[in-house]
């Protein structure tokens, strides 16, 4: 492998109530690649992403970030990742701009957030409370974080939910730009991605394996 591994997973196992939900012997995420996680519903895609974001702790195994265990360099690691989950974390009472300023967790110039919203097709919606926006637009507000963050690693859980065809294209370009500038993307989706250099990884939870056999 020419590229160095950003993330390497070794023998990761996560159990919930004595059922193995995620079991992943070996998985690498390299700089400059888009990793697509695939699998049927309930196969543990979301759980794997949540393990990667440290929202939940595995029972066994380690996740290494640049060769160091993420438990050791937790702060550094968390500063370098950006996670957008099923729930978009968009506050409905706040405006799109307020939401972005809030989620950026740092000083954010109004111009920058306006530009990000504009490039996601939300020009003119920046000062409207988000409950007035449609589901797809709310999703776009959440995705605008991608343009504002300087995180190296993106974790996207079903990012295309409620997004129209143009939005999907836009997001795909975003991902490509990000990996070409030295980042990496881990994305779980059922859709076929129209991007270069996408690598696939299939998860199949043990509970499902048992159901099939």
């Amino acid at each position: 492998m020419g590229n160095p591994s950003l993330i390497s997973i070794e023998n990761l196992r996560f159990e919930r109530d004595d059922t193995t939900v995620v079991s992943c012997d070996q998985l690498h995420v390299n700089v400059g690649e888009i990793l697509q996680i695939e699998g049927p519903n309930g196969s543990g895609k979301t759980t794997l992403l949540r393990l990667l974001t440290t929202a939940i702790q595995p029972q066994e195994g380690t996740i290494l970030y640049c060769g160091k265990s993420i438990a050791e360099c937790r702060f550094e690691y968390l500063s370098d990742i950006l996670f957008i989950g099923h729930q978009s974390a968009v506050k409905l009472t706040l405006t799109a701009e307020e939401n972005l300023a809030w989620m950026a967790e740092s000083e954010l110039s109004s111009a920058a957030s306006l530009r990000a919203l504009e490039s996601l097709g939300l020009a003119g919606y920046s000062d409207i409370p988000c409950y007035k926006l449609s589901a797809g637009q709310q999703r776009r507000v959440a995705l605008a974080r991608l343009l504002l963050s300087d995180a190296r690693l993106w974790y996207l859980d079903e990012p295309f939910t409620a997004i129209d065809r143009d939005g999907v294209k836009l997001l795909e370009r975003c991902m490509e730009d990000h990996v070409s500038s030295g980042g990496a993307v881990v994305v779980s989706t059922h859709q076929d991605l129209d991007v270069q250099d996408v690598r696939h990884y299939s998860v199949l939870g043990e509970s499902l394996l048992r159901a099939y056999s």
Partner: protein
Amino acid sequence: MRKYTSDGFYAYLRRDLLQSHRRLGEAASPLIFFVMASTLVPLGITPDPASLAEIASGIIWVFALLATMLSVGGLFAGDYQDGSLEQLLISPQVLVMPVLGKVTAHWLITGLPLTLVSPLLGLMLFLPEAGYLPMTASLALGTACLSLLGAVGAALTVSLQKGGMLLALIVMPLYMPVIIFGAATVQYGIDGLAWTAPLAILGAMLAAAIALCPLAIASVLRLTSIN
């Protein structure tokens, strides 16, 4: 990334205040509950000023407690449902500060208005004049205690769909010392005793709660909100 540890505190304080500012009706309901419930007592017991004066301090304290308890359940519920709680848990910062910011916002939205309105209720329930100052002072400190303790319960029940009643079960025993010293402060004031003594104990409880509750809340959120 936030520069200072205290940034998380202010950021969450500001956001929660802004959110309740946008939904004033919802934010005001604990206060309205407090006033409405207290007027049930003369209807249910007696309108006689002498009898009301005797129990006024207790009534006001009990309903302040209930109002806080009913409102504290929503402290983390919204954040849990829309995913911002998960974002908070994976953000590179000390969890205690945002938690404290959120609880402070809760107190500013419920405890402080309750404290400010309590003299009005004192008037309606014929609270003796010497009781007003002790009442507002004890409510100010006491409701902050209630917000902090209630937030522990709210964190414990955040991932449960119907956590409201359970929250009450969990939190009420923890509230008992607060109401004992809170109501006693008012009673001491009315009886002409040194009411600053029970008030000081209430202050000590608040100090302990500020030190310990955010730690408990933060660890509970990490342990149980994810399932």
